[in-house]
Structures are given as structure tokens and as C-alpha cells.
């Protein structure tokens, strides 16, 4: 567990902050997630798993492996408990924004007073400073403003967003990395405490602005052009063409790669046309014509043939595929990429981390679930064991979740903070849930 010993307090909802602390938990950090009594809003967003309780799949993905505390930080006992937790944590990850904390009487200055070494990672759509900092933003608004939406779709039709809340996932990834760097800096005494303000808009617009330097330097206006990257980014081809079975992504930016592509096609007559000798010239004037030639060739090739050609000639030319095929992909299986989660009697495969770690003592276990899975398999009837082991081979890691309800660990956490049974009963008074 690489991040063993780091204590994270998450006050987050939906995707950005929960994904940040999920990544840190995957690497071994100890995460306590605080939810209000009506829960993280993501709990209400489907698709849902019908198990012991109706459960949001995405909520399960992003929040398993965390301790869950139900707390009303806007009440006075809630605030007190929150500050006690702050004093025992290294990093606070939140996505409500600085003004929320001021409004409820818990300004960051007070949080820093409670723990002078705390790192605060604040993940909001537009950030805590700047003219739009108070603006309301969902993911599509962030991507629209950052220039990404204008890049996607056909030129004569409306622009569209990229799917699956990329701005918030990307923000979470940035937040996780920044949290560890800031914590290291505090650990080394370079800094007493640190506040990191990462807006989803900053992240996405910084990516797209960087890539635009390729386009703008070539006088190409970076804008949606259907399946083709704007102006082929100045080096033909950079597009998606239809293969026999799947759409094929094809990109040859390096010097000589287009030539190799035509060789892979058997150097057809058209490729000797003097107009088609320079990929930059093709991108400017002949992309449609050459697309037609290339697509004629590609449309006859199966995905397997495409992959073979790509490997043989060393050119980037691959089928576009969806989750169903990724789940069967032998490379992902070999790398034990997937994570298996079991809930309500069913198992679900979800994405894992995209890297493996080893040190001089050998491969590193990113979490200890694998050993548990082996133990767990021992109690199952034979066919189930076989199935589970097969899955285990495939996934590398398996985790069984029995309870992921709001405040499932409240009592344990409150006791750990020194609360007595009677004071916990006091918190429980209004209903059967414990939420100070």
C-alpha cells in the first residue's frame, strides 16, 4: 500500500472529490467520507443495482473502501466533531467551495487553526477565485466554456459534449495528485499548511489550450470537423474511418508514417500521385479525396486484420471499441487491470488503476483484497469457486461490499473520537440514524 498512513477526510459529493479520494484509497490511503443525512447526491443517480437496497452503481464504484460518516457540519455538535476529525487528518478534499465553508461558520482559517499541517484540496467547477467563481456549473457547462464542446461533432450540426463526466473525473485525478504533492511538502516542513484550488474549467481548458498550439501554429482553426481532427492537425491522416467491423482510429503525425501506411496498403497507384506526397499538403487540400482511397482499403479489413497490419508495420491504426470488448481484451486481463466488486449477490467488473507498481522486493499489492478473495472463495460451493477463481484471475482483485449505507461507520468513528455510548445515543435520538 503505497499511501499507507495518509489520512483523508472527504467532504464531497457527486464525482470530483469522491473520485479524488477513491484514487487515494486505491493506493492505500485511509479515507473517511462525510455525508449529510440525505446522503451524497450521487446516491440518487442511476443506473441502480437492485440489491438489499437500491444502489447507484457509480456511487458504489467511487465510494467503496471508504469509511462513511453521517454528519451535519452545519450544526454545532457536527462542527465540533468535524474539527476533531480535521485535527486527525492530513488532507481535506472538498467540492463545496470556499464560500460554503464561510457561510456555515467553518472558514478555512479556522480549519487550519485546528490542524496547522492540514492540506485542503478544493475542487469546484470554476474555482474559488475569478469572475465566474460563484457561477453554477455542471460538467457540460465546464466543457462548453473550456473549448472542448466546440471541438466535437459535425461542422454543420450542433456541438456535443464528451460523455461520462470527463471534466469531473479529470478534476478528481488532478486533485488526487495535487493532494499528495502538497502533503509531501507539509511533511518535509517546507510548508505549514496548503490550500489547493483546482477548478474543472482550469483543468480542461489547460489541456485543450495546450493542444491548440499544434493547430494554431499551423493556422488551423481548432473546431469540430466530424470524424476528422480539425484540419487533420496539419498531418494527414488524423481521423476515424469505417472498417469492415468497427470504426478505425488512424493517426500518423510523425515524419514518414503516412508513407508507411501507403506501403501497408501495397503502394497503390493513387498513392504515387504527386499531390499526395506531403501529409501536410494532403491535410490542407486533399483530405476528403485521400480518405476515400484509404477507406476503400480499410472497409475490407476485419478488426483482427487491422491489428495485424498495425503491429507488422508499426503504424497507429486501431479499431474503436466499447466496454464489452474491453472486458474481453486479453491485454487488460493479462495486466489484471479490472477490479471486481460483489454486491447483493452479483459481481460487477469496474475499472481499476492504469498502472502496476513494483519495487526491488517485487510486485506491489495495490490493495489487500486479493488475499481476501482467495480466503472468501474457500467458503463457496465448487462451481461458484470455479467461477469466482476465473473472475479473480481476470480481475486480479475482488471486493465484497455488504453495506455502503449513509453513516455505516458513524458509531465506530464517533467512539474513536472519544464519544460515549450515551452521547452517541443523544445523536441517535431523532431517528434511528446517527447524525450529529
Amino acid at each position, binding site marked *: 500500500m503505497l499511501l499507507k498512513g495518509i489520512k483523508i477526510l472527504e467532504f464531497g459529493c457527486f464525482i470530483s472529490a469522491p473520485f479524488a479520494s477513491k484514487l487515494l484509497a486505491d493506493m492505500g490511503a485511509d479515507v473517511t467520507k462525510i455525508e449529510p443525512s440525505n446522503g451524497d447526491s450521487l446516491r440518487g443517480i442511476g*443506473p441502480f443495482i437492485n440489491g438489499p437496497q437500491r444502489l447507484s452503481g457509480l456511487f458504489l464504484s467511487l465510494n467503496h473502501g471508504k469509511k462513511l460518516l453521517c454528519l451535519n457540519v452545519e450544526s454545532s455538535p457536527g462542527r465540533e466533531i468535524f474539527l476533531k476529525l480535521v485535527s486527525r487528518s492530513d488532507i481535506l478534499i472538498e467540492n463545496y467551495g470556499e464560500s460554503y465553508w464561510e457561510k456555515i461558520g467553518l472558514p478555512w482559517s479556522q480549519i487550519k487553526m485546528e490542524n496547522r499541517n492540514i492540506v485542503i484540496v478544493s475542487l469546484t467547477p470554476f474555482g474559488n477565485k475569478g469572475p465566474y467563481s460563484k457561477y453554477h456549473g455542471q460538467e457540460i457547462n465546464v466543457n462548453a466554456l473550456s473549448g472542448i464542446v466546440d471541438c466535437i461533432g459535425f461542422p454543420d450540426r450542433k456541438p456535443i459534449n464528451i460523455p461520462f463526466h470527463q471534466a469531473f473525473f479529470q478534476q478528481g485525478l*488532478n486533485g488526487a495528485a495535487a493532494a499528495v504533492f502538497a502533503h509531501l511538502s507539509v511533511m518535509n516542513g517546507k510548508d505549514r499548511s*496548503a490550500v489547493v484550488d483546482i477548478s474543472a474549467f482550469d483543468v480542461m481548458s489547460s489541456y485543450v489550450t495546450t493542444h491548440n498550439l499544434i493547430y494554431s501554429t499551423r493556422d488551423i482553426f481548432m473546431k469540430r470537423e466530424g470524424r476528422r481532427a480539425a484540419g487533420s492537425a496539419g498531418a494527414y491522416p488524423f481521423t476515424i474511418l469505417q472498417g469492415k467491423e468497427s470504426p478505425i482510429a488512424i493517426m500518423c503525425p510523425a515524419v514518414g508514417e503516412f508513407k508507411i501506411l501507403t506501403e501497408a496498403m501495397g503502394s497503390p497507384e493513387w498513392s504515387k500521385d504527386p499531390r499526395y506526397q506531403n501529409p501536410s499538403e494532403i491535410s490542407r487540400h486533399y483530405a476528403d479525396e485521400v480518405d476515400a482511397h484509404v477507406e476503400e482499403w480499410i472497409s475490407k479489413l476485419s478488426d483482427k486484420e487491422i491489428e495485424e497490419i498495425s503491429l507488422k508495420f508499426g503504424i497507429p491504426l486501431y479499431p474503436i471499441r466499447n466496454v464489452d470488448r474491453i472486458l474481453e481484451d486479453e491485454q487488460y486481463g493479462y495486466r489484471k487491470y479490472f477490479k471486481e466488486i460483489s454486491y447483493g449477490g452479483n459481481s460487477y467488473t469496474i475499472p481499476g488503476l492504469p498502472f502496476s507498481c513494483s519495487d526491488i522486493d517485487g510486485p506491489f499489492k495495490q490493495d489487500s483484497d486479493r488475499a481476501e478473495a482467495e480466503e472468501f472463495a474457500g467458503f463457496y460451493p465448487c462451481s461458484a469457486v470455479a467461477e469466482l477463481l476465473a473472475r479473480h484471475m481476470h480481475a486480479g482483485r475482488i471486493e465484497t461490499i455488504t453495506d455502503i449505507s449513509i453513516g455505516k461507520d458513524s458509531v465506530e468513528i464517533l467512539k474513536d473520537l472519544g464519544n460515549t455510548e450515551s452521547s452517541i445515543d443523544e445523536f441517535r435520538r431523532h431517528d434511528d440514524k446517527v447524525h450529529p
Partner: protein
Amino acid sequence: MKFSNARVLDFGWNWTGPMTGRYLADLGAQVIKIESPKRPDPIRYIPGKKIKQADHGLVRNPKFETHPFFHNVNRGKLGFTVDLTKVEGKALLEELISKSDAIIENFSAGVLDRMGLSYERLVKIKKDIIVVSMSIAGQKGPKNKIKGYAAVSTGLGGLEANIGYDGECTGGLTFAYGDPNGAMFGIFALACAFYHKERTGKGLYVDLSQMEAITSLLHEAFWLHHLVPGELGAKAHRGDGYIVNDVFPCRGTDKWMAISVSDPKTLIGLSQLIPSIRGIPEEGTQSFRDKIGKAITEWTSDRVSDEVFELLQRNGVPAAPVLNVNHLPDDPHFKARNIAEIVDHPLVGEEITVNLPWQFSGYHPDYDRAPYLGEHTVKILKEILSKSDAEIEELKEKEII
């Protein structure tokens, strides 16, 4: 204030690898870009801007120093050239490795091994070295030879197939998401490795796959696959969790407003601006969403984008105009957040440089421009490897550096 004191050898080329090194340089690390004097980073070969000012003696070949993109993803690094096909060159590099903390590379799988720099070998040179390899598919396995760029990692990783209009996949190649995403996962892995080293004194080998790095962002796609058969694939907008989540036309040509409504309170805010919404029976169905969409379109179509943006935000409705990236530098928020700055490059003049999108309280990164090819080779030989002038002359004569 510095977040890293590490010395990092950056073997990266193109985008993902160099971007990872660039972010580390922003965080304070001393990042040394290692290049072959004969076959430097391919991005150097792309013709960039016209050279405005005369060579000031540090530049070996001006044509390698003209691209703002190269300047960006290599900002703040030191430049070191060494010919690794020569025995003395390899020895020199090993000497430098012995004085470094981390190595970043994004060659095709196995290239580092073939250079004689496998992790097993590297730990013999420097016991606690951190190595981050970032190929498309990972170093080992049946498809480790997959070669590619962003379009390959996003295509194979499962994102592109889900971008497009209903049932009509366009992909989103223009954005080239795979590269910065791979770099950011690389930075996350490095952060974990630095912490591990701080705590245990041990180095780490990280084998990252860029296509997996895309898949790791697709949790929602996995749940659709498991729970809602037939929902995957290109969809202009997905309904789950939203009443409205789409772009709407504003007055003018190709002007659009992204509007998102996910709760009843926001819907009330919207209906204060567009009263006709109140009459639509609240069913939560697709037809309900379509009718609201139609009402919004009627309202936005004859208003200019600025007005729509302001009115919606004032009424608590998440909204933002669809901006073109070329117009971002004029946006007041983009400016205030200091996401990018104009800098003056000594050879090509003014150009945009993009900052690490993390705002640390009281911290502004201090950076130098990207190094010219091999610009700091002599400085590094003197200051880090304590070579004498005579030794350096000999290395130059033998064309090792």
C-alpha cells in the same frame, strides 16, 4: 515554495512523457530532458513559428527550436544530449542516473530494456530509483507492442466509441484527450512513488498503460454496460440524473449555450425566465425532456449568448456559452485564473504558455523556457558529474554529447 526537490531524467518524447516531466518542473523538480543529438524529440521536427531573432550562440540548429507546443511541454527543463549508441555515452548516462531520483519514459514497450536500462539494471545503478514507464498498452502482455498516439489510446480505451450524435459515432479526436490524461495519471503515480520513497526509502517501478488510463475514467460506461443493456455507444446527451443537459442555439451563427438542470429547484429558476415550461406536465420522461428542450430553444434562439448566460446564471441555472479555444484568452475568467500566459521566446517571439491547473495558495511557478537541444549538457557535466574542461572537450570531440 517547492513541492519537489527531485532530480528527474525525462526520456519523454511527443506529448505524454514530456508533459509529465513539465508538470514536475512546475512543482519544483529539476527535470533534465535527455535527447539523442542525432535523433531528438520528434516534436522538434515539426515546423513551428518563424525565427525572428538571431541565434545567440546557444542554439545548435534553429529549426529544432521553433514550435510553441514543444516550448510548452518542455518548459522549465534542462536539456542534455548524449549518444547512447556509443559505450562512453551509455556510461555517462549511467553516471547521471546514479545521481538522479526518477526516470520518466514513454517509448514503445520494451525500448528501455533494449537500451540496457531495464528496471533490474537501473536499481543496480541507483538503488532507490523511481521509474515511470508510460506506453500505450503496458510493458508486458500479449498486445504490449501496440504503438500509437492519443487517438489510439482513447479509441482502444473505450471513450471514442461513446462520442457522437444518437447512434452516429464521431469520436472526439480533435481534443486528443489521451495525452494529457496519460500525463496526469503519470503525475499521480509519481506523487505516490515520492511518498513511498519518503516513508520507506525505497524506489518504485511504475508500468502505466495509456489506454487503461482512459478506461479508468469510464466507470459510468461500465455501469451502463452491466445494468442498462443497449445504452452504450454514441448519444448526443444522456438523460440519467438530468432534466436538461444539452447545448441550445443562441442568436447568430454557430452560437450555443450549454444548459444543465438536474433538480426541481433549478427547474423553477429556469421557468421564471421561460414561463411556458410551467405548463409542461412533469413526468420525468423523455417526452417531458424533449418539450422542455423545445421551450428552451425557442427562448434562447432570439437572444444573444451573453444575455442568456447572464440571465440563466442570475436565476441559478448552470449555464455557459460554447466557447472556441481560440477565444478563451479573451474570457475574463480564463484570464483571472492565469491558466495561460503570454511569454517572450528569444527566438520566435511572443507565444502562449499554459500553466499547471493547480492554484496553490501563495505559489506561482517560476520557470525558464524550454531548453534548446542539449543546451545544458556542459553545465550538467560540470555541476552534477564534476567533469573537467578537458574531459568535456574529449566527449565533444568523440561526439558523445
